[in-house]
């Protein structure tokens, strides 16, 4: 088991490294989103999750109390949902164009910044208020633990 997992991740790492060396277009098109995804998820969200998991020292979850309907219908309904989604995709894009690197260069930080501060200025400001509220909420929730 350990050997299998090690080999899987080793192969992924080696293939990724080969891709880094071989790839002529280092970034496909979504430069800004790619960077933001790494920074926000690897840098912030995952660190938060890991800290909370370490802090709570959670054991294995209990395997009881599952409802009858969920165990009976859950998996078939989910498979039906996936089949429906895949069917729609295949119906809408039966022979779709391939995605090639550099096919769309509109995702640069310049283009995103221009759209962000012109077309999407109001959502941007509302989002900043949302983040402010989230900061206040997190601080209030954490303050309770101190006193």
């Amino acid at each position: 088991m350990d050997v299998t997992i090690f080999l899987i991740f080793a192969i992924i790492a080696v293939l990724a490294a080969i891709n880094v060396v071989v790839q002529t277009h280092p970034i496909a098109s979504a430069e800004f989103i790619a960077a933001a995804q790494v920074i926000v998820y690897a840098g912030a969200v995952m660190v938060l999750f890991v800290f909370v998991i370490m802090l709570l020292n959670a054991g294995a979850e209990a395997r009881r109390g599952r409802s009858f309907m969920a165990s009976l219908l859950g998996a078939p309904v989910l498979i039906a949902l996936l089949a429906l989604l895949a069917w729609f995709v295949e119906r809408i894009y039966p022979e779709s164009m391939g995605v090639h690197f550099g096919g769309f260069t509109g995702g640069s930080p310049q283009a995103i910044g221009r759209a962000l501060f012109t077309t999407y200025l109001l959502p941007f400001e509302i989002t900043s208020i949302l983040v402010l509220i989230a900061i206040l909420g997190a601080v209030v929730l954490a303050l309770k633990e101190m006193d």
Partner: protein
Amino acid sequence: MTQVPISWFLTLSAVLFVLGVAGFIFRRSIITMFMSIELMLNAVNLTFITFSYELKQVDGHLFVFFVMVVAAAEAAVGLAIILDVFKNRKTLNIDEVDSMKN
């Protein structure tokens, strides 16, 4: 090098989304359910980016940006709530946090 069709990206996104739904429905640990929500958000992000490429519009990137901001805010507040729940109830099982039932 053969190109990856757009429908593959959309199908991958659908698979990730259904996995997130499955995790949210079937798992009973609050943290796992929370991570399933993040998985669903990221699956939708992949769809946005794919359509942004297909339509050659930058708007999809903006939507992904807003979704990521909301996800980060949600993670900060949600994990603080999870800490409080664990502090008060000493459990992470969602079935035992049912004081609003009945």
